[in-house]
């Protein structure tokens, strides 16, 4: 049951998007978000939709997976949609009851918001679907490296992130095992009130913490045995390399962003 949780949700495939430089993918995703929120008009959504479509096709990710990524936020979508729909005023008013009303502006904004959030989630999921968590942290480290000048421990932070990601599946497996072991001794986790359920977690959390600390200690020791001494002068197994496809992708993104800015200015 715990095994079914997908974390990092990397979807391994051999595609153009998977092979892209992760640094570029992060920058492009950030620009994509900027574009979505900068644009105030319908063409923005069309651009966004076209971009997600293109990226999905190029990445060979099944469209089902994209839909799946949007599913968890459906309640938020409904909430934002209804809020905008009933509370905004402006333009022609079609229906009114006390402080609730449906106006032209309301319909427009609520549709716009919902589509915008969907695109936002789809776009960012594409990043995590096509980039393994380890590569992603590498890229974040590379992008943040200018901050080293400000004495920010960028490498250490990235290493911590990598280790945390690496140990999530291990700890999930461990939790599963401990849960089974305590269930075999009659631990009851499925019934009872809130207090009883919280108490039932103790036999799981304590062994889990103990084992997490034990693992941390072992890992620290193993790293020291292999002379780990931080980021200074450290070379990499996986080099981040940028190529023509990365620049083309970035150019497409920048062109769309520019177009959105121009449209904004023209339609004012």
């Amino acid at each position, binding site marked *: 049951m715990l*095994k079914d949780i997908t974390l990092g949700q990397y979807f391994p495939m051999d595609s153009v998007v998977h092979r892209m430089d992760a640094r570029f993918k992060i920058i492009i995703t950030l620009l994509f978000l900027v574009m979505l929120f900068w644009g105030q008009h319908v063409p923005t959504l069309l651009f966004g939709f076209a971009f997600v479509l293109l990226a999905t096709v190029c990445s060979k990710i099944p469209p089902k997976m994209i839909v799946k990524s949007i599913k968890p936020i459906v309640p938020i979508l409904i909430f934002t949609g209804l809020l905008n729909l009933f509370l905004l005023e402006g333009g022609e008013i079609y229906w009114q009851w006390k402080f609730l009303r449906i106006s032209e502006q309301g319909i427009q904004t609520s549709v716009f918001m919902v589509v915008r959030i969907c695109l936002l989630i789809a776009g960012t999921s594409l990043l995590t679907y096509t980039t393994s968590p380890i590569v992603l942290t590498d890229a974040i480290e590379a992008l943040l490296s200018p901050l080293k000048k400000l004495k920010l421990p960028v490498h250490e932070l990235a290493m911590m992130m990598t280790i945390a990601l690496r140990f999530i599946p291990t700890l999930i497996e461990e939790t599963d*095992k*401990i849960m*089974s*072991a*305590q*269930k*075999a*001794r*009659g*631990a*009851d986790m499925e019934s009872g009130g809130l207090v009883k359920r919280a108490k039932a977690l*103790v*036999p799981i959390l*304590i*062994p889990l913490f*103990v*084992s997490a600390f034990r693992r941390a200690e072992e890992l620290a020791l193993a790293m020291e045995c292999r002379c780990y001494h931080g980021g200074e002068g450290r070379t990499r197994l996986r080099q981040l390399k940028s190529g023509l496809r990365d620049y083309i992708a970035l150019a497409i993104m920048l062109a769309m962003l520019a177009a959105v800015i121009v449209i904004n200015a023209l339609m004012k």
Partner: protein
Amino acid sequence: MPILEAKNLTYTYSIGSPFEKTAVDHIDLQIEAGEFIGVIGHTGSGKSTLMQMLNGLLKPTDGTVLLEGKDIWAKGADRRAVRFQVGLVFQYPEYQLFEETVYRDIAFGPKNMGLGETEIDRRVRETAEAVGLSEALLDKAPYALSGGQKRRAAIAGVMAMEPKVLILDEPCAGLDPKGRMKILSQLRDYHRRTGCTVLLVSHSMEDVAKYVSKLLVLSHAKVVSFDTPAKVFADGERLTEMGLALPQITRVFHGLRARGFDIPDEVYTVKYGAELLLQMLKGGGPGC
């Protein structure tokens, strides 16, 4: 009627994903009350999965598990009660210790059964003694114990539920020979004293051969044989092919047979082997 029965039992992990794997493949099994069974198989042969289905922790993909003739997954069946009757000690059980004292940790199972104070106290003290933990250790924190003591405290935690069937998944993994011997002989004594059914999972023939009355051999999710150790070890070649090593003494005797000595092929304890050899030497058998 067998105490525990598996019919057509199957378990498949991650159905429908690329990682789909059948760990237990249509297994039929009948375990009679009071037996001491050794379960052996190479890594990934489905031992642990099978054991977790026998006490209702995993729901079979197909097939049924019958405890004293009753389907444990039947509608309205109380799976928690099943787990009290079929006690399962996991691999590295010391990682499940969590209470402040050893006493309270052993009492966790009996307490979950809803037993009274005096009954719990009796069970804790009895099982602690059975696994060789002294009274003084009962008030200590589990983390103050040595590795072998922790292991035995965790085993006591399951024994204290006084299950009709006790399953132990590799109880000796990672222990030194002395610790292994201690746990195995304590298990044998426990089995003799209580008469309960014991299933001992291991991949070491050497360990189990001496103690068990029957051997269940698993390979690639299927039962290869389920018989007395003598009969199972007689077919040594097949076991070796499956990546399971025979006990040393059995290998010696198989080697002697191959060199033309007229001796049985089912020797699996040093004691029996020594007797046979002495007899042969006295009688001046062939080649002596």
